[in-house]
């Protein structure tokens, strides 16, 4: 069973002369264990598509299912529950909660997923997996950009989601940190079979992907699968 399936999804913003068709009849299936990058020029619909896949937005037309469940008729609360339990997010600007320490940020994901007991141990273990052992007590402003993004990866992965959505995860990092973050994501994909879908402009990121979906003007213009890279 596919992780996520979009059929003929359309998304339009605005109306009249200001109407923008951000997605035009997009169909896409994400299979378990995939490491997929969405690429394309600015305004091509990458972020809009990620929003749909991540259930942060709902389509105007078409159907979307996650883990075999059609999400079209779900309420806002039910969508929150699906996000909390099945989808992890990594953002370009890290989006860590500034008043929480690294380990508390990671724990929060478990708590919002409704998991009780052992959150601290699980959070520390995942921080160790992303190379941040011993830094859990630091607040985001006490960490470098690369470290913050690795906390965000840990936060996304700690609840063992079906799918991790990453929007330009390396855009705010220098090349060294960007590569380290990408390597971490690749390793987790390889070792734990975590499914990643992310958007990027970065050629280095695109080069690491095993599936490259290219968008232009709200439509998929190519969908290329590659052999696994080490």
């Amino acid at each position, binding site marked *: 069973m596919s992780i996520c399936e979009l059929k003929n999804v359309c998304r339009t913003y605005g109306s009249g002369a200001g109407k923008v068709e951000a997605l035009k009849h997009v169909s896409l299936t994400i299979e378990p264990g995939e490491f997929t990058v969405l690429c394309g020029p600015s305004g091509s619909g990458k972020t809009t598509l990620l929003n749909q896949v*991540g259930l*942060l937005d709902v389509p105007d037309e078409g159907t979307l299912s996650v883990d075999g469940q059609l999400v079209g008729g779900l309420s806002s609360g039910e969508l*929150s529950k699906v996000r909390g339990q099945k989808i992890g*997010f990594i953002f370009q600007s890290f989006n860590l909660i500034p008043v929480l320490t690294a380990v508390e940020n990671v724990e929060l994901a478990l708590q919002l997923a409704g998991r009780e007991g052992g959150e601290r141990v699980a959070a520390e273990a995942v921080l160790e997996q992303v190379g941040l052992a011993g830094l859990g007590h630091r607040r985001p402003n006490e960490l470098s950009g690369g470290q913050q993004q690795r906390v965000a990866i840990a936060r996304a992965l700690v609840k063992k989601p079906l799918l991790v959505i990453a929007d330009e995860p390396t855009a705010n990092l220098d090349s060294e940190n960007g590569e380290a973050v990408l390597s971490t994501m690749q390793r987790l994909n390889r070792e734990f079979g975590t499914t990643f879908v992310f958007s990027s402009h970065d050629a280095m990121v695109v080069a690491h992907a095993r599936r490259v979906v290219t968008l232009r003007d709200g439509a998929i213009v190519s969908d290329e699968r590659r052999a696994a890279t080490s």
Partner: protein
Amino acid sequence: MNLIARLALKNLTRNRRRTALTMISIIAGIGIMIVGQAFIAGTEENIFVSAEEGVVGHVLARPEGYPSQGLNAPLDRLLTIGPEARALLDAQTVAWTGRVQFAPTAVHGAESVRVRAFGYEPDRDPRVFSRERWSIDGRYPNPEADEVTVSRSVARLLQLKPGDRFVLQVRTHHGALNALEVAVSGILTTGNTALDGLGLFAPMALTTRLTGADAPTHLSVKLARRALATDFKPRLLAVLQGAEVSTVQEETAELISLQAVRRKSLDVLVFILLALAAFGMANTFLMAAYERTREVGTLRAMGMTEGSVTALFVTEGSIVGLVGSLLGAAWGSALALWWSVHPLDISEALQRSGTTGSGTSMAFSALIYTAFDPAVAGLGVALGLAVAMASSWYPARVASALRPSDAVRA
């Protein structure tokens, strides 16, 4: 601890100065409410106690049509306390006493002034009217001698001191003019405006010789407690011929009605303060909601529901409201309690301004104090909390209504 409460607490610590400033209006509002209510309750109690301990007791009887205001104290009408009345008074009261109120002219050398005189029964009077707060420069009069006490204002106007002699001139019960030279045994301060103004106390034997009055103009009754006055009044009325009887509640009704105006004024002041607090809090939390748009979006992306976002902001408001209200209740209660045992003595100021005892039976103590009621403090905390929750509701709804897809990239 609950996740929402923990996050709310953490959020409140991110900008401690702003949180403290937001709290200040609640702290001030609730504190002022508690002190204000205690002041009004204290003033109300003061009015009752002053009347009870000054000129009324719990129940007061006087001849029908006798003036209750001013220095007009006619002696042509006296109370008749028959055997039936005495039996009732002895059996059903804690104490009772008669007084003769009259308004003689006091003359000392070239100075003269009309005073408000109380002829009293030396044995009975202190049992009805407590002398706990009275102080005397000199001594109380010898009941057998022609001695009186005068208030400070009379002593000042006539330049009298203990041991001095002066003349009292009065129209007697029979209509004749009479005058008697008396000695000042002491200068009396009661702390009660009705007695301290132009007051003079003369033992009943001297009063009778001076005025010819062989019965009192006023009868004051002390009961086990104030609340019994209403029930006792008709019983006394039934056994006193030609008398009008009133309770301490009726005697003080005019002053107590003024308290209602004060209470309303305080309510308006507290409403304005709490409205300002509410607007301030709503503004602060709305600002916080916009500042934390991306954070709210992230929480929503991670699975937090709209309801939980609302709850998060309302909880933050509630914590600010609860802590602010508790601090407000703490300083308000502390001040109200301290003031209740450390009265403010304004007798000097009243005497300087000439406000004291112009001859009215309405009395109030020159000691200003509060009466603290813990229930008011509890109400204040509940009110502060309610205001805070209400004022954080709109910002909470604004925050929870943010679309996650837009909010995460704000």
